[in-house]
């Protein structure tokens, strides 16, 4: 029986919107010792910043509210506290502070008082910084980069499992009742949430 060698073996990352490191923490074998829970806590003021930050990643659009409306302000710090080990919580918290410092430095305003355009500009910088760091792997800005990547991951996770994300940004049916494996895709039809 003639058999050909298959293509190179590649780790197949399922659920590819989320980074490998977040996948590792949330889906695999991490265990947080008791004394590492709630290592860093966040205030209501912090939650407002998370909400605004997340809203730049997934903004409100015509069809659906954004991450802020979907409660990401509370979701992001809650997930950090409940699901992430000490070193990552610490790095995330440092990055969070550096975000606020950067806001002051670039715009002479606190993050909460920035305009959407200003926050977007900041996000563009963070993204560029993160893409660059992937290449250079430098130590500089590593906490801020970790913050950006993780906060973005959690925003996508939290938004697309939220009621707004499932029922407005996508379509969701609790009880389909049947299976049809050959349905014409209508123009503008949204994807199924689950």
């Amino acid at each position, binding site marked *: *029986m003639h*058999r*050909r*060698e*298959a*293509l190179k*073996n*590649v*780790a*197949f990352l399922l*659920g*590819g*919107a989320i980074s490998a490191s977040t996948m590792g923490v*949330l889906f695999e*074998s*991490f*265990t*947080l*010792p*008791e004394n*590492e829970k709630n290592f860093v806590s966040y205030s209501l003021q912090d939650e407002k910043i998370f909400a605004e930050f997340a809203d730049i*990643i*997934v*903004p409100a*659009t015509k*069809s659906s509210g*954004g991450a802020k409306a979907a409660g990401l302000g509370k979701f992001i710090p*809650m*997930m950090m506290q*409940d*699901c992430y080990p000490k070193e990552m919580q610490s790095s995330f918290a440092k990055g969070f502070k550096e975000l606020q410092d950067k806001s002051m430095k670039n715009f002479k305003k606190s993050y909460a008082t920035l305009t959407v355009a200003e926050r*977007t500009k900041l996000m563009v910088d963070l*993204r560029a910084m993160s893409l660059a760091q992937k290449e250079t792997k430098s130590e500089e800005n590593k906490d801020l980069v970790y913050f950006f990547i993780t906060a*973005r991951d959690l925003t996508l*996770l*939290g938004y*697309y*499992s939220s*009621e707004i994300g*499932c029922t407005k*940004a*996508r379509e*969701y049916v*609790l*009880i*389909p*009742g*049947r*299976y*049809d*494996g*050959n*349905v*014409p*895709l209508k123009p503008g*039809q*949204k*994807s*199924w949430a*689950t």
Partner: protein
Amino acid sequence: MNLNTNLKAENTYDAIVIGSGISGGWAAKELTEKGLRVLMLERGMNIEHITGYETAMKNPWDFKHAGKLTEEQKRTHPVQKRDYPYQEANEKWWVNDLECPYTEDKRFDWYRGFHVGGKSLMWGRQSYRLSDHNFEDNAKDGHGVDWPIRYAEMSPWYDYAERFAGISGSKENWPTCPDGEFLPPMDLNVVEKSVKARVEEHYKRERIIMIGRTANLTVPHKGRGNCQYRNLCSRGCPFGAYFSTQSSTLPAAMATKRLTLRPYSIVNHIIYDKDTKKAKGVMVIDAETNKTMEFYAKIIFVNGSTLGTTFILLNSTSEAHPNGLGNASGQLGHNLMDHHFRCGASGEAEGFDDKYTYGRRANGIYVPRYQNIGNDKRDYLRGFGYQGGASRANWQSDVAELSFGAGLKEKMTKPGKWTMGLGGFGEMLPYYENKVYIDKTKKDKWGQPVLAIDCEYKENEKKMRVDMMNDAAEMLEAAGMKNIKTYDNGCYPGMAIHEQGTARMGADPKTSVLNKWNQMHEVNNVFVTDGACMPSIACQNPSLTFMALTARAADYAVKELKKNNI
């Protein structure tokens, strides 16, 4: 005095069934329906059908952590957390590993469900018959001992099990995977149909792709509702649409009014009577109060799940059975097997951008084994099948791009690419050295010793995995898939949750624990019909075979009891 006598009488039944999972539930149903008063002992909590399925109707946003595990859950479930089955949605249904430790001489991921229904609540539901190709393999290549039965004897019991359980599937006339008594099959989707047609043409039907044979109802069956295509089976089904103890065998047993179900009852050992040379009953530890008690019966069915069963048998020592009950052969605890999987290939389907699906099918495709059959010769023994399927996932935005904003949201709103994957499930040979034994240096929450597991895949399995990837890639390419990638995510025994062996059937009492009726060679009123009894595991999902073996053994046991042979 009076109290003792009454207690003994109250604690005496015609039969005891240890375990309430997929095979235990069947034993309880068969034995009660044949007129026996049965005590079914389950070590864990009760879960009521429907009302006990707390998360079955929850939406994604009803889960605080978006379905992910908390650190506390991971802390108390260090083994269960290793792979996908343990989730936020069904986290109460997996064993607390800290309360029930075990020893891993080599890594073995032991997944356990300690509650009424056992793993029949969380199982994958794929249901395939074994064939004579499988029953003859041990004799042919010398690994393991010859099965003491053949397909001709099993066929009517497969019929029987399928007719009750409700298995949907298609008839394919494929020799290694015999057809059964099926409810209408679920549909392949448009991409799967295309792949099937092209693969079968390319290989001239020496390989086929069929819809999975699954224990999900496609039509109402025996008072149970049909599948609603939510794909949330492992949370419990409020429609009773898949086979479980709760949906199927327990109601049948209860209807006879001859079943007593006692949860929180950990069987520590079987009590052997050296005068009658039979089992007298069982010693139970109440899991909530730690009190011990005894129950007595004429017949005992041991259905505690493969390793749970073997633990009890190894722990049931006496002067006549110093190495465990019925272990004169020395085979008890040996020949542990599990399927190996988590390797295969996937690719992208082009030309179907205008097609989508409706509903979430709780089933995939199946490619029955075609290796080492006829002219197909491999450099390893036996073979594998594939599970898999095509789907149009949500858009996978490029992680490397780290994009954000309305553009990202726009992308994430649209259906993504069609992809098709094939994941192999490979047979593992029976090796004597793959074994379990009792580790007295550790104790569980109730003061019992624990099981030690020493098991690993060997050369035959490793060689097979190369083909599992390459054959899959080759088939997907023949089907016109693009961007094909093979994968091997690494596998350890236990991960497939198809662990079998350790109390095998065989014709010869010198090399096996059970005879052709799943009856212990040495203790004729003890029957083992869960995974522990298997002399080999083939590559097919095993639970349907456990159901058939259980029904057949129960039929024999009751007949023997009536003839006073037991």
